[in-house]
């Protein structure tokens, strides 16, 4: 038991930064949605208007699922928080569980742990208990944020529970995937693949006519049936708990039977040499990242086709003035035209591409943390050449993903005869780049100045700026604070004209930060992880 306690504490401490980050996001979403709704829709008349228009809009349901009650603060907050937060909580559970169950084995640390007087069953249970404890923290924080926004305690506790609940199922999915895949990467791909399918099934259930029964095929659909603040029905919680229990028991049974360090899928450890892309550190990075680049392209492409198809879902007839006002704060344009709707959606591509830029900073940092960079720099490879290769790769890959977004959104829009031309949507894709490159430059600067904290800083800047953009206006932050977020300076192309001045400033900030990054990286020691 003593050893199990040590494993539990280690796992909890290892995950503390990620847990704290998600807690902040849940708290911000819960608080801002409740407070923002009260401010924006003070009267029943406005709330009815919202329910009639926004709530029935398929494009909005893409993110938040099906609403049950948009006439009360709790009903609205429940829809917004549980609808989107349940996806976030599921992704959190996947990363947390793969981290404690598979990443430890990747680094042979699990051998060290299991050499102690602790059974595999106890080690497995202790690691999962740490994730469960972190989930309880997330639940508490989300609940407190809702209570702070003047929602009743009981309902807040239930809504927070609903939001976190699918994490249990996806913890089970990740636990099984960690037994199947022999590496962290494979386990993550399997689990996130299952999450992607679960999300697509929810989308189909919500926005395809007559497909409501599909909702029962996905845990994210069961979450929708829990109906926080709208005639709550906790029965599907049993379904979630049962699914989680079955998956966790199956994974636990495998973990006591298999070889530690291996998975059920055989690892392909021998291969004839393929010597392509090994000429320089930059091309090697492309080689190492190609799988993840393909996954990003697939995800962004799927999303782009979907928003293209949905670009005609808004019309003058079914939009309220209050809603128009709220959305203008996000995208700064009218969304009733297809071009305007696409401009609104492309704000999310700015977010995705900025996160992708962060992932490239993280990849560079990993090469340093794993001490592979020492080997490279001990060769006749200069620091500027190495970092330059990384920057070129990150920039070109971000640009390529922006083009994927533009072209595939055009294909989706063309299917629905939305009448937005290919050049305009390629322009919309290109318009996402200045902000993403600004974040890339800032992430690089963090890498140059504070390498150990750089990955957290890079992601933190993007998420913080996006939350500010999303909720800053709703909770009444002053204008100069809102202006700090690069998101507020991205024009909603193609619905609004390109803002060349703002784009130039963002590119200039990115370039200046990158230049400082090169200068500081050239002067500093290398730091192992």
């Amino acid at each position, binding site marked *: 038991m003593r050893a199990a306690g040590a494993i539990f504490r280690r796992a909890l401490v290892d995950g503390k930064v990620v847990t704290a980050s998600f807690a902040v996001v849940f708290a911000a979403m819960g608080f801002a949605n409740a407070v923002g709704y009260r401010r924006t829709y003070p009267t029943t008349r406005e709330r009815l208007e919202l329910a009639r228009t926004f709530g029935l809009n398929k494009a909005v349901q893409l993110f938040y699922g099906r609403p049950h009650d948009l006439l009360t603060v709790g009903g609205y907050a429940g829809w917004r928080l549980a609808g989107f937060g349940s996806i976030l909580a599921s992704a959190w559970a996947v990363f947390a569980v793969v981290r404690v169950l598979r990443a430890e084995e990747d680094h042979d640390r699990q051998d060290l742990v299991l050499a102690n007087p602790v059974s595999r069953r106890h080690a497995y249970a202790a690691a999962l208990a740490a994730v469960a404890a972190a989930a309880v923290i997330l639940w508490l924080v989300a609940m407190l944020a809702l209570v702070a926004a003047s929602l009743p305690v009981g309902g807040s506790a239930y809504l927070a529970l609903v939001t976190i609940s699918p994490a249990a199922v996806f913890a089970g999915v990740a636990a099984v995937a960690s037994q199947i895949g022999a*590496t962290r990467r494979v386990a993550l791909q399997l689990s996130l693949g299952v999450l992607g399918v679960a999300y697509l099934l929810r989308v189909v259930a919500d926005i395809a006519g007559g497909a409501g029964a599909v909702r029962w095929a996905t845990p994210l659909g069961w979450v929708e049936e829990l109906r926080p603040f709208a005639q709550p029905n906790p029965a599907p919680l049993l379904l979630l708990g049962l699914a989680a229990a079955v998956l966790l028991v199956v994974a636990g049974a495998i973990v006591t039977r298999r070889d530690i360090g291996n998975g059920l899928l055989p*690892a*392909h*450890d*021998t*291969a*004839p*040499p*393929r*010597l392509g892309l*090994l*000429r*320089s*550190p930059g091309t*090697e990075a492309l080689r*190492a990242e190609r799988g993840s680049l393909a996954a990003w392209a697939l995800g962004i492409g799927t999303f782009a086709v979907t928003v293209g198809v949905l670009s005609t879902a808004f019309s003058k007839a079914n939009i309220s003035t209050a809603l128009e006002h709220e959305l203008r704060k996000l995208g700064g344009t009218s969304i009733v035209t297809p071009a305007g709707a696409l401009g609104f959606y492309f704000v999310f591509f700015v977010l995705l591409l900025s996160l992708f830029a962060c992932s490239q900073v993280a990849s560079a940092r990993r090469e340093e943390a*794993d*001490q*592979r960079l*020492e*080997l*490279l*720099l*001990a*060769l*006749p*490879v*200069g620091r500027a050449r190495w970092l330059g290769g990384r920057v070129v790769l990150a920039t070109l890959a971000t640009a390529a993903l922006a083009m994927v977004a533009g072209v595939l959104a055009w294909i989706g829009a063309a299917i629905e005869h939305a009448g937005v031309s290919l050049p305009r949507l390629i322009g919309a894709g290109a318009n996402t780049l200045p902000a993403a490159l600004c974040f890339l430059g800032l992430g690089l600067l963090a890498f140059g100045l504070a390498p150990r904290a750089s990955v957290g800083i890079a992601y933190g800047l993007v998420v913080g700026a996006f939350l500010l953009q999303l909720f800053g206006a709703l909770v009444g932050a002053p204008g100069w604070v809102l202006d700090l977020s690069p998101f507020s300076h991205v024009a909603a192309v193609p619905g609004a004209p390109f803002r060349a001045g703002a784009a130039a400033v963002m590119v200039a900030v990115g370039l200046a930060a990158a230049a400082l990054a090169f200068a500081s990286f050239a*002067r*500093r*020691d*290398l730091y192992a992880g």
Partner: protein
Amino acid sequence: MQTPAIHTEGLSKRYGSTLALDSLDLAVEPGEVYGYLGPNGAGKTTTIRLLLGLHRATAGRAELFGRDAWSDAVAAHRRVAYVAGEPTLWPGLTGAETLAYLANLHGTTDAAYRDELVERFRLDAPKKVRALSKGNRQKVQLVAALATRADLLVLDEPTTGLDPLMEQVFREAVLEAKQRGQTVFLSSHILSEVEALCDRVGILREGRLVDQGTLAELRHLSAHTLDVTFAGPRPQIPELPGIHASIVDGSSMRFEVAGELTALLAELAKHDVTSLTSRQPSLEEIFLHHYDGSGGAPVA
């Protein structure tokens, strides 16, 4: 006089409040095999990181073949090959792919010699690095470094994880490199390896170079040791200058002699000696001379 392969002056490195390397003055001549000895944490890897321009010196300077280790690192590295103590490598590449990548980056690699080394080290080249044991990953690094035929090989505890057969292959390869006139900087705490390979040895203790020289020079600093057994009970031997006597048992004594042996031999000749062995101190004894075994202050 030719340019030294490695030259440092007052080279120091401070990490926060820890002085990891304290004013190192070092000169390694071309063609020399230099053993860099010290226990864990003495500053061996710090020295190497400074020599390779991976970390920046707090004070002093380092040069490789006359080129500044920090500001002219890329040019210096064209003549250097490095083997790291903690081989992580690229998990998704196979051994052969890793060798190709490192060869591409170095620019000069003797492909025929590389293939020969792959054979001699029995490297499982088609296997991915993530599936290799520590020793096998070390072999990938060693083959890559040796195959460059670089003028200077910087080896940081290169044989950790190697089995005795591979350790033997490694020693042969280093001696071949020496015969070709390559310089080797071998950081190690394996004394037999250093004794077998190195022309000169430096001993590092808590960031300071406490002793340096050829093995013969280092030995002169220490005593000869004579173990003597007498036929009967041990006699009374008078105190002699520069000689330290200790009693082993009823009929045996040990003498540590710092200077001339003549006076002691003359004294011993007066007694019935059945056995006398004389030996010079091993590198291990010289090394332990600088550490009291518990890592504390050196034995005076």
